[in-house]
Each structure stands twice: as structure tokens, then as C-alpha cells.
């Protein structure tokens, strides 16, 4: 535990020192990055060590004489600490060359402060052992990430995105707080352990409230509205941390509540599978329809949260129907996906960050041909895209594979489990196909073909500190994909901490599955290698000519004629028409000498479209009716205070 707090101290030091050094820009960044990354490395080593230790560590401090701040590191906490520290470490390195405007020296220093606070609060949330501690650091996490999102506060969209995020994270916190309040009200203890004695109906209410609250952080449909706005607005290393790990803290919250309630109702699994299915499919459909590269990645995070929820749901169904193998496969698969998604999503956000920095545009359709000028970015982005599409032999496949196996175990159970498993499996298959379409679109339009605009022509990549984290992450994707054994053991440690009541989970049946993946991946790589050799042999002493692309007889092709991302996605988004209504703006061509015209299209998110009419207007209407309470005169306010005191004294 000491090592854990020491690492947090070093990280916080890395946040505060830059504030004092902000007059020396490079020195400040060096100190900040070194200190934060050193702290993260210490924390990472410690949490890996903790993960494989049988006993749990606990510590408690007195706070304000009334509460105690207590922390505990069990398998589940340690499992979530690993990606938090690891991705933050690489994001800190990445930020060194990413934040390169000396004019904004003070703002950069402040951003390091909030960055260190974000990392520290995330680690403290996952180790919190009681409600008070959890809520305190949850709030610090939300607030520090809010300040990081509004880094470019002079832009109006950024301020809007920040506001939206602020509202959503606090509405979510309100729901979590009400769930905790119910827990406290019925159990009378601040600890999570007390929740196990709650009456059953309270457990269900608490879980549903907590799910909605944590779901808004995790970006579960329809509480995801903030996510596609906040992630593109934030600087890219922050988006990498937010999308890679922060939204997973929401998943952690759901799991922690599940452990605390220790109640295996079939309802929980049903909620999670259905929510996961909707988030997964709609997330990827909207991702496909996006034209902004970071927005698209944000929607893809929603999709991956859906996959994780499906896995958790399968695990919970396995628990409620008494099928241990299905439960462990579902939970372990989704924990694996948590880890894997944190790797490839932060990689993709970092790649998108370089692209945006070098070309100055977010628009996918304005880019093209970057693979030739940004080889490392292009290669790593390609690997990340393959991994996120869930293709073997990369890591994205591994988690999904176990979730599939868990889902198939549910097919043989009762009718309800059968229906849910069927939905889970089919939606995973559809999500997989759509993700492939989505990422072939991004890779194809952004990195391949010819540049579609001036800005894409001049791109380059020279900053090693931005490239190294991406190379590290990209290397991990195939390594985990081919040798999933180590990370699978980690996931099993995490699952053991869920108190499923199975005692020690045996490794051997699962190890056989990871061995199978390794073996098949090895055979596949062998075949690819043989084919490469065959190709090399076939091309010995052959004439290779280079010329323009065959235009099917058309002799004057221009780069404007290339297929764009929007046209690539159009037929698929049309297929999902009811949820992907397209807003088109196109003044008709009129007269003999028509004026210059334009065409713009924008796919609207169904949740965003109905949020205003279904939710915002009724709430505003209700609070409008209460406006008379606030007249701006001080005397009634004093009266309110007196009244409140009287009520509290006599009636409570």
C-alpha cells in the first residue's frame, strides 16, 4: 500500500511542480512528464505485483472526524489499476511533444496539474473501500477531466462540449449518490460490504440507479451524449486517457456494485446484455457515419463499452442460472476487453492526435495518402484498427472470443437465457462486421489513396516522444493476440475478486483455450510467412512497372474523384435508417447560370435528437414553475435558512 501512495505522491508532484516552473517551458514539461511517468511506472509495477498476491491490502485514514477514508486493493482494483497506470504513463510521454505551444505555458502547466489529479483520482476511485471515499474521488475525477476537456476554452464548441460533459457527469454522480444513499439508509454503514444485507427490492433499485449513473460515465447508450462531444474537444493525449481508461472506471463501478450487492438476479444480466447490445450496435453505426476522426473514435468507444457490457451480462446470466463456466468466461472476456480496449483505443487516439496536429483538420474526408508521409503513425494506426475490429491474431479478438464462448454456453440453458445469449452472439457478430467497415473506412480514407486537400500533402512525423508510445502500444496488440495467457491470468485474478462463490477458479480449462488461440495464431502467421516467401519467389527477376491507377479508360482522374468516407459509409447507414437520420443541406441548382452550390450531410444521433424534447424541456418546464422561490431578495433567503434549521431540529 505504501508503494501505491508513494506513486500517487510522485504523480501529484509531477502536477504541481510545473506550476512553479511555468516560465521555463521545456524544463516545466520535462519535469512534469518525468515525474508523472515515473509515478505511473512505480504504480504499474506495484499493481502488477498486487494482482498476483493472494492477500488484499487495506488502509484507513480519519477524515473530518466523522468519516474515514479507507482504501483496499483487491484483485479487481489491481486489475483496473494496470491499464490506468499504463495508459497514463504513455499519455504523459506523448504529451511532451504534443503540448508544444510555449505561448500557452501557464495553461500547459495547469493541464499537467489536472492530468496528475485525474490519474490520482482514478486510481483512488478503484481502490476506495467505502462510499464517502469513492464519491470524493469520483467527483475529483469528473472535475479534473472537465478542466482537461476545456483546454482550448477559447473555442465555442469546446466550451459547449465541456458544459455538456459537466452536466452529464454530475447528473450521473447524482444517480450514483442516490444509489449510495439508499445503501446507507438500509444498511447504516458506509462500507461497500454492508450492502449485502439489503432487502432484495432495494438491491434491484440500487443496482439500476448505479447502473444509470456509472453508465453515463461509461458512455452507455442513451447516457452517452456527452462522450462524442467531449472526446474530440479534449487534447489527444487526454482523449486517449479518457477513452482508454476513464470511461472504464464506470465499468469498474458497475462491477463493484455487483460484488457489493452480492445478489444474482437474472434481471441484472438482462439489463446489461440489452444495454450492451444497443450501445454496441448503435455506437458502431454512428461511428461509421462520422466525418470527424476523433468523434468517430469516441463513438467506437461506445461500441466497445457495449461489447464489455455484453460480456458482463453474460457473466451475470451465468451466475444467476448457476453455470460457472459461462460466468467466468463472460466476466473474464469482458475484463480482457477492458484491458485490450485501453491499449488500442489510446493508440488510435494518439494516432488521430498526430494526424490532426500535422494536417490541422479533423475531417476524415479532407485527408488521404498519409501512409506515405507518416509511416509509423500509419502502421500503428493500421494495427490498432485491425485490433479494434476484433481480428485475429491481434488482442481485440481474444476478449471477444471468450465472450462468444460464454454466450454459446448460455444457448443450452433455459428459454430466457437462450434468447439473451442469442441476442448477445448475433449483436457481437454484427458489431464485428460493422467495426470492420468502420475502420477500413478510416484507414482507407485517411491513410491510403491520394491526399484530398492541401493540408494532407504537407504532413510529416518527426517527434519521437509522440511516436514511441504508439509503437509500444502497437507492439502489444499482436503480442497479446498471439500470447494471451499472461493477460488472461490477470483477468482471472480480477474475476476471482468478484466473490462469485466458486472459491479458487481453476486455470487449466481456460489455459487450454488460450493455448488454442496461440497455436492457431502461430499457424496463421506461419502461413502468412510462407505466402510472403512464395510471393518473393514469384517476383524474382520480374519487371515491375509503376504508373498511375487504372482509371477504366478515363484519362484525367483527379484526387477529388476518390471515394470519400461519407460515400463509403452511406449504404450501411441507409440500412440502419430509422436511427441514422441524415441531415442534408443542399441548395438546389437553379436557372441557366446557377450560383455556386454546396452539399453537406450530418448523421444525427437519435439520443441527442430526442434528448431535448423528451428530457430537457420537461425538466426546464418543471424548474420554471419553482422559479418564484428565487426572488433575489436577501430576507426570504434568511427565512429559508431558519425554516430549514427548524425543520431539521424538530422533525429529523
Amino acid at each position, binding site marked *: 500500500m505504501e508503494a501505491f501512495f508513494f506513486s500517487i505522491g510522485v504523480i501529484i508532484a509531477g502536477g504541481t511542480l510545473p506550476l512553479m516552473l511555468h516560465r521555463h517551458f521545456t524544463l516545466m514539461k520535462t519535469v512534469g512528464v518525468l515525474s508523472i511517468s515515473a509515478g505511473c511506472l512505480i504504480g504499474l509495477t506495484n499493481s502488477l505485483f498486487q494482482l498476483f498476491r493472494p492477500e488484499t491490502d487495506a488502509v484507513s485514514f480519519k477524515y473530518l472526524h466523522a468519516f474515514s477514508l479507507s482504501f483496499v486493493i483487491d484483485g479487481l482494483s489491481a486489475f483496473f489499476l494496470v491499464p490506468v497506470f499504463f495508459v497514463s504513463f504513455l499519455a504523459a510521454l506523448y504529451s511532451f511533444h504534443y503540448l508544444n505551444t510555449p505561448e500557452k505555458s501557464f495553461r500547459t502547466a495547469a493541464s499537467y496539474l489536472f492530468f496528475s489529479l485525474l490519474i490520482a483520482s482514478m486510481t483512488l476511485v478503484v481502490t476506495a473501500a467505502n462510499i464517502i471515499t469513492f464519491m470524493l474521488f469520483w467527483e475529483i475525477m469528473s472535475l479534473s477531466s472537465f478542466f482537461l476537456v476545456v483546454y482550448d476554452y477559447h473555442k465555442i464548441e469546446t466550451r459547449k462540449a465541456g458544459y455538456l460533459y459537466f452536466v452529464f457527469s454530475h447528473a450521473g454522480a447524482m444517480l450514483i449518490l442516490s444509489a449510495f444513499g439508499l445503501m446507507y439508509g438500509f444498511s447504516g454503514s458506509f462500507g461497500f460490504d454492508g450492502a449485502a444485507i439489503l432487502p432484495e427490492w432495494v438491491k434491484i433499485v440500487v443496482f439500476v440507479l448505479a447502473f444509470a449513473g456509472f453508465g453515463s460515465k461509461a458512455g452507455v447508450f442513451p447516457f452517452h451524449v456527452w462522450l462524442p462531444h467531449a472526446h474530440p474537444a479534449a487534447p489527444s493525449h487526454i482523449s486517449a486517457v479518457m477513452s482508454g481508461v476513464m470511461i472504464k472506471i464506470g465499468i469498474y463501478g458497475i462491477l463493484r456494485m455487483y460484488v457489493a450487492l452480492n445478489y444474482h438476479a437474472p434481471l441484472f444480466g438482462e439489463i446489461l446484455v440489452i444495454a450492451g447490445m444497443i450501445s454496441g450496435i448503435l455506437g458502431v453505426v454512428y461511428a461509421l457515419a462520422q466525418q470527424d476522426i476523433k468523434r468517430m473514435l469516441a463513438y467506437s468507444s461506445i461500441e466497445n463499452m457495449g461489447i464489455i457490457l455484453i460480456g458482463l451480462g453474460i457473466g451475470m446470466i451465468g451466475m444467476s442460472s448457476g453455470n460457472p463456466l459461462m460466468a467466468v468466461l463472460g466476466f473474464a472476456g469482458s475484463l480482457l476487453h477492458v484491458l485490450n480496449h485501453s491499449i488500442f483505443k489510446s493508440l488510435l487516439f494518439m494516432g488521430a492526435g498526430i494526424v490532426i496536429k500535422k494536417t490541422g483538420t479533423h475531417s476524415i474526408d479532407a485527408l488521404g495518402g498519409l501512409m506515405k508521409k507518416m509511416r509509423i503513425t500509419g502502421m500503428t494506426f493500421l494495427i490498432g484498427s485491425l485490433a479494434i475490429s476484433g*481480428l485475429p491474431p491481434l488482442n481485440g479478438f481474444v476478449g471477444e472470443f471468450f465472450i462468444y464462448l460464454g454466450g454459446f454456453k448460455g444457448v443450452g440453458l433455459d428459454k430466457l437465457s437462450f434468447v439473451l445469449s442469442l441476442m448477445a452472439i448475433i449483436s457481437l457478430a454484427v458489431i464485428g462486421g460493422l467495426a470492420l467497415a468502420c475502420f477500413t473506412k478510416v484507414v482507407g480514407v485517411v491513410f491510403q489513396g491520394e491526399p484530398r486537400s492541401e493540408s494532407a500533402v504537407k504532413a510529416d512525423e518527426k517527434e519521437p516522444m509522440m511516436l514511441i508510445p504508439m509503437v509500444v502500444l502497437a507492439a502489444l496488440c499482436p503480442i497479446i493476440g498471439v500470447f494471451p495467457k499472461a493477460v488472461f491470468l490477470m483477468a482471472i485474478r480480477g474475476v476471482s475478486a468478484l466473490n462469485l462463490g466458486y472459491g479458487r477458479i481453476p486455470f487449466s480449462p481456460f489455459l487450454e483455450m488460450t493455448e488454442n488461440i496461440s497455436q492457431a495464431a502461430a499457424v496463421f502467421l506461419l502461413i502468412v510467412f510462407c505466402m510472403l516467401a512464395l510471393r518473393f519467389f514469384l517476383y524474382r527477376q520480374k519487371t515491375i512497372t509503376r504508373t498511375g*491507377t487504372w482509371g477504366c479508360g478515363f484519362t484525367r482522374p483527379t484526387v477529388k474523384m476518390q471515394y470519400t468516407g461519407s460515400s463509403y459509409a452511406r449504404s450501411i447507414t441507409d440500412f440502419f435508417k430509422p436511427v441514422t437520420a441524415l441531415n442534408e443541406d443542399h441548395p438546389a441548382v437553379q436557372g441557366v447560370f446557377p450560383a455556386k452550390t454546396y452539399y453537406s450531410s450530418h448523421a444525427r444521433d437519435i439520443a441527442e435528437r430526442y434528448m431535448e424534447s423528451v428530457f430537457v424541456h420537461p425538466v426546464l418546464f418543471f424548474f420554471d414553475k419553482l422559479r418564484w422561490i428565487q426572488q433575489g431578495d436577501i430576507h426570504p433567503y434568511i427565512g429559508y435558512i431558519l425554516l430549514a434549521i427548524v425543520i431539521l431540529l424538530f422533525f429529523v
Partner: protein
Amino acid sequence: MIESIILWILAICLSPFYAAVILKVKAFFGGKKGPPLLIHYFTLIKLMQKGSVYSNSTTFIFKMGPIASLSAALMALLFLPIAGRSPVLSFNGDVIFVLYVLGLGRFFTIAAAMDTASPFEGMGAAREAFFPIICEATMFMILILFFQLTGELTFAAYFTGIQTSGLWRVAGAPMLFVVMAFFIILLTENSRVPVDDPATHLELTMIHEVMVLDHSGPDFGLIELGAFIKLLFYSTFVARLICPIHAAHPFVNFVIFCAALSGVYVAIGVTESVMARFRMDRVSHFVLTSFALAFFATVITLEFVK
């Protein structure tokens, strides 16, 4: 093991021959003599001897495309029981692995098409990304059905020996739906009429052919070989299902299997001869039919099998 590997190699070698059967059937319907049955071997040999022309727009991904699609097809074939004999590789969940490996092949084929900056190839790529999504949903629907019937997740459990006839015995009527669904998937995944027309020269109406427009020489040869193997892979499903007979002698067995396979290829040829290809926006409905069939099959079985 040795027998499985020999069958694997044999299947690879036979795949161009069977693809020519389709041409022969189409020529018969057209009242022509048609190309010789060995035409694809001649084409492959010719292509392998040539050099290549590469577009200035392309990168290494363009060269990875043929490798990935051929490797994926070869990999898939390793898990498939050929002629009802046990496959070279098999493990619990290999069906999922194979479907995703084929996805990897598709990813690179699409990426190679996008690499050329050609609007035609982009068009083909968009379609190639779209239709297989529905196919995958159907495949997993069928897997759910098969899992219900056998409790296994391997190709070996579905298509080896007497297993296939076992499927028919347990759930005969739903299996008819499955055969139809498989046939639709076969046509879609392998870009045959009525989804795509492999013979047309109109770039706007093609899917697979237009994506490989810029490939030439040995690269193109590898793509063609990969496509033949993939076609054989899907045809084997249908062939095993329509002819689940399992003879004791391996040789007799192989002959029966080859005959069944010819039947499937002839059926593809007949379909291509008597049908026109659908308008692009109708194709998704056609492919969805397969999903509906597989869905019904699964729901019906739910009541029969306890």
C-alpha cells in the same frame, strides 16, 4: 493427420478445377462450348509468369492484400473437414476463429482496394464491407443452431463422418432452411450472381472484381487462388449437408464427396445462368433472407430439441 494434410492439399489443388465447372455450366446454358475445364490452371500459370504494374498511389498494404486474403482462405480450409475426414486443426471455438480470420482477409482486400485511390475500387470496397455483415449474422445464427444440436463449436463436430447425417436425423426440416441459408451466404461471400457478377466488365455493378482491378501478375494470381479456395470452403458446407453419406472406405468417401461438390458447383452455375443480378439496394434484402431462414430454423429447433 497425414491424411488430413493430403486432403487439404488436394482441396487446394482441386479448387480451380471446380470453379471452371461453373463456367462450363454457364456455357452450356448459353449454347456455347465454353473454356476447357482446366482453364483456371492455365490462367494461374500465365499470371505467375508475368511481372506486375503498380500504381503510384499504392503502399505496402496493396501488396499485403493478396497475401492476407489467400492466407485467410488457406487457414480456414485447415479447420474444415474435407470429405468428412477430420480436419488438420480443430479446437473448441474454431468456427469463431475461422470466421474472424476470413474477416482479416476481407480487411486487407478492402484496404488494398482503398490504396489505389480509384473511385471504382472504393465503390466495390464499400459493398464488400456491407454485405458480409449480414452474412456473419447468419453464420452465427446457424452456429447457434448447430451448437444446440451438437453442443460443440467446431467444424469437425458438424461435418465429420456421420455427424452430418446426425444433424439431419435430429432436426431434418430446419436443416433444409440451413442449406438454403448456406447457399445464399456462399453466393454473397464469393461474389456470385445474383449478388455480384464475376463476368461483367461494368465496374459500377461489380463488387469483388472491381476491387482487384489494379492487381496484376502473380499478385492477381494469388487473389484468384484465394477466391477459388474460399469458394470451395463454402461449397463444402453445402456439399456435406446435401450429401451426408459416409462410406467406410476413404477413397469411396472422397469420390462421393467430389460428386456432391460438383453438384453444388453446377447449382451455382445454373443459378448464374437463369438469374440476373439484383439491383444493389435489393441485395441486402436478398442476403437478409438467409438470416430469416437461419433464424426460423433455430426457433423451430428450440421446440424440438430439449
